[in-house]
């Protein structure tokens, strides 16, 4: 039996746009608090008031319009999950929302909005997990497993200036995701067999670090996380385990596959390796695994990983099932939940 079953999974990935500024979307009157004196330690230190663009070679990443909040993206992801499997809604006992970038509305609460919209009965176990960089999902999976509660996991981010959407060679996308996980789901698209969490030291000087240093740092964190999965102890020595994870670029994906001795689900030059879906990133890696299992018509094991310059990282061994059913923007169990 898996440590955690994973039911419906949905991804909300906006259309891709091309940018030539490394900063997130500039929205008038949003984040002005960061330019008062107290904000000097809460905004990137190299961004002064009035700076709304930092030139970057063109890059593409999923982007929403100025009126769409990260909270809206999360709402859409959870709504899609609930629509895909209405029967699961009443079984949800807890909601863990994950978010890295502050919502442009500032004072509202996405986790409480989701609770009030979808899971009013789960009032006693609702919160937003933060301060984990762009790698919150392994911690969320560990918490869901430890509480024993059937849990809705949601994640969303929208990159707004003065925060960097393109940093250290990684292009972060606006995106959201939702997955329903627990021990008592009646149908599942995947089983979480093991989760490993790494809380390491942050990358020094992340705003000015050379891309090569950032990639080396992230690769090192990811290797630590994958090592904690102890794939070599699997019956077949882990030789049949695939690899999927953050879109930090082909170089990181390729180096990691070689270091870990695993076969990547995506070829290094696959465009998905060039786009990081922020807090929703690990959901996307799991979705890739499920898609592969369905296509292969066989159960496959995938080691999924995520790593952030904040020093947080993690990995999970996911057993993806071939009978998952595709939904408009994700996957649901063939047998309902």
């Amino acid at each position, binding site marked *: 039996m898996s440590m955690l079953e994973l039911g419906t999974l949905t991804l909300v990935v906006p259309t891709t746009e091309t940018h030539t500024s490394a900063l997130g979307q500039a929205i008038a009157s949003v984040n002005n608090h960061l330019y008062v004196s107290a904000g000097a330690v809460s905004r990137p230190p190299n961004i002064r008031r009035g700076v709304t663009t930092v030139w970057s070679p063109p890059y593409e990443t999923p982007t929403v319009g100025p009126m769409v909040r990260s909270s809206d993206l999360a709402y859409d992801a959870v709504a899609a999950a609930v629509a895909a499997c209405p029967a699961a809604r009443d079984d949800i006992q807890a909601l863990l929302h994950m*978010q890295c970038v502050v919502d442009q509305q500032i004072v509202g609460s996405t986790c*409480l909005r989701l609770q009030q919209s979808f899971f009013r009965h789960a009032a006693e176990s609702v919160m937003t*997990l*933060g*301060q984990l960089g762009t790698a919150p999902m392994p911690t969320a999976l560990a918490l869901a497993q430890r509480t024993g509660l059937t849990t809705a996991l949601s994640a969303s981010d929208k990159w707004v200036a003065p925060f960097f959407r393109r940093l250290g060679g990684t292009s972060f996308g606006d995106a959201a995701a939702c997955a329903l996980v627990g021990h008592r789901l009646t149908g599942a698209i995947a089983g979480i067999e093991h989760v490993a969490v790494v809380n390491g030291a942050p990358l020094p000087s992340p705003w000015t670090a050379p891309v090569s240093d950032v990639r080396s740092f992230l690769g090192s964190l990811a290797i630590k996380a994958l090592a904690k999965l102890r794939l070599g102890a699997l019956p077949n020595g882990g030789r049949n385990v695939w690899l999927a994870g953050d879109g930090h670029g082909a170089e990181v994906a390729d180096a990691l596959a070689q270091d870990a001795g695993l076969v990547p689900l995506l070829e290094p030059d696959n465009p998905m390796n060039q786009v990081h879906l922020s807090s929703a990133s690990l959901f996307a890696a799991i979705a890739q695994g499920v898609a592969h299992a369905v296509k292969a018509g066989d159960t496959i094991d995938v080691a999924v990983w995520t790593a*952030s310059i904040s020093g*947080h990282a993690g990995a999970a061994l996911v057993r993806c099932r071939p009978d998952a059913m595709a939904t408009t923007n994700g996957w649901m169990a063939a047998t309902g939940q």
Partner: protein
Amino acid sequence: MLDRAHRFDFGIVAAACELPGDAIDIVDYAAANGVDERLLAELLANHVRYFHDAGPRSDADLVASAIDAIVAERGRGWLGKVGYLIHARTQPFSCPPAPTSVIGEICDRFGIAPKLAFGIEQLACAGVVAAIDRAMMLLRTDPAAEFALITTADRVFGGAEWRLRQNAGVQTDAGTALLIGREQLLTRFGPITYTMFPGLAEGPSSPQLNAMIARTTPFQTKRSFERLADACGMAIGGFAQLLPINADRHYWVEIARFLGVPEDRFFLDNITRRGHALCGDLAINLIDGGLPVIGAGGTVAYCGQSNLGAYANIALCPPGVETLVDFIRPQAADVDA
């Protein structure tokens, strides 16, 4: 109400707070910042007087000073025994810039290597109680872990229009640390209750919501205390002291009347002396008011109040109170009287 045999296994081993610099008198602050004289008179009439300003110090700096205070008292040995680190905050910007993390900075500075570390966000001032709840769950399911560390940091961004909380409070900058364990307790945690009110998830983001929050807060707070008393199986009068957040004195006076307890059952001194430290109010009020009462054998209740419709209350008992039966017994005389 909990099962009468439910054991209260955890409590606070050490508590510390960092209120940066000298206390600032709002009379001087008002003169220097052009605060309207009528507003100043109303603040003084509402017993608002002193606060602290962190200046250029970061959230991690404030937390580090609080941890340093525990190190000064207990040495450094406990740092290596922290199994879990949870950081709670209210202010959306009180953190380093995304995607970096205050937790990463704290762990790096002190060499803490927790099994899990995360921030609890978007529950406003109820977040610190949710952090205690989650810390207890993690320690309960991990007997090998000796301690959990709960930290908070909140800073005000902007001038007097943000520092002053309408006419009845001033927000202070502060960092706090609570070391949670099983032995040598200053206070033992009793029941925790959550009381949620749908419809306020967007916070004080419009005149309509501002008015609704102002109108409903006293009633919601009363309900949250009643719910905690129900969980404890006793009358609200059984609590020797009620700890508020450090603002809105007139509300607490009104709430005392609603609850049928004398006004001085609420520890209101820190509305004047300290100001509202958001998630830090729990540690600050415990140190200044709650722990002496608990040391004398009384039980204390804290209300993690928010303007998002989320309330989390906790009972704090003398260390000798180990079960709900123990909890009720010493209060019986008070209730009967």
